[in-house]
């Protein structure tokens, strides 16, 4: 679950964002605490805190004094917009690099995507 190559705190933040994007962590719901994240991912609490702070700075989480962290209203839309913007860079570019290496053109790739998206015929 934890991979090398990307700072750990960024990965922690992204996993919290994943739960917001897929709806398992609703807006205005309480987010996991730094210590819960640290224990769950078996990482240093300072690293978990850095991930949480990144989400606070970004406006995804906000702090209620004495209670904990909560998901901000509008966080899901914000994350969806951001992820759609990054989709080309993160997923399409690597796809095209590999396609080129094995001699597939953009149209071939598009055909494969269409075929893959169709419901499997029994």
């Amino acid at each position, binding site marked *: 679950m934890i991979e090398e190559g990307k700072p750990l705190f960024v990965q922690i933040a992204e996993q919290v964002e994943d739960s917001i994007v897929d709806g398992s962590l609703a807006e205005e719901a309480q987010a996991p605490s730094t210590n819960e994240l640290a*224990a769950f991912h*078996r990482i240093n609490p300072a690293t978990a805190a850095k991930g949480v702070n990144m989400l606070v700075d970004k406006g995804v989480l906000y702090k209620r004094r004495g209670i904990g962290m909560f998901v901000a209203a509008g966080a899901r839309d914000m994350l969806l917009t951001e992820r759609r913007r990054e989709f080309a860079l993160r997923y399409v570019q690597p796809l095209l690099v590999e396609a080129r290496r094995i001699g597939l053109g953009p149209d071939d790739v598009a055909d494969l995507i269409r075929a893959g998206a169709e419901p499997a015929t029994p």
Partner: protein
Amino acid sequence: MDSVIEVRHLTKRYKDVLALDDVTFDIQRDAIYGFLGRNGAGKTTAMSILTAQNLPTSGQVRVFGEDPYENAVVLSRMCFVRESQKYPDDATPRHALASARLFFPRWDQDLADDLVEEFQLPLKRTIKKLSRGQLSAVGVIIGLASRAEITFFDEPYLGLDAVARQTFYDRLLTDYAEHPRTVLLSSHLIDEVANLIERVLVIDGGRIIMDESTEDARAQATNVVGDAATVETALRGREVIHRESLGRVSSVTFLGRLDDAERAAFAAVGLDLAPVSLQQLIVRLTQQRTPGRDTLAPASQEGTLR
């Protein structure tokens, strides 16, 4: 920065061997450090001097701003779990835990009882009849339950199986989260502790060769794989720490960060980039010298040895 330990120009010489060579570093309050290095690099010597169980040849050590030597107040705030702790012949774990309870002002008996159960430590068997893993468990339990402001774990895992080690890591993290304190964890199982530690201190041949946040350390090196000639061209001017080749393909580890544009440039010429784990990085950085350390010429100061 809030330091609990300050080490300045610390040197320790044993006969003709330089165990610590003019070492200077600080340890910040309430952080978990990985104190890493090969066998004989000087880790245990450094920890022994910091806990006043050994004397420096020269240089200065300050713990909580004071000299730890024969300083009972400072010593009761530190716990040193030695890899090869010796106990009296007829001592049992019960005796060891009872004396630890007397010595450490922040001792938590409930935590100790809990850990005894979790590690299934037989309290009444004499320590010399314990297995290596059970002996390690005694040290781990004392290290955790003492809640000392500074705790040194010197390879605390010997003989502990994977499950018991995970128990140790989990307990360390949860107890640290509730009771923040300074921990120096010396370990060869770098991959196992990489996510637990906030900072990395690497000692090699008696010298500190790395002192930084784990996050920065991890981003320090990259591995590149591809056509040998292309790799060489792309890496011109960079510091290479390891090289392997298989036919025309080479795999090279180099220091330095890459920005997005540089990554794209590597990808454009068909080179694959891969991250380097903390363990790989430290292996690469410390394998450049042979084990053992610089030996001095016949020492003229031999008479000054402790």
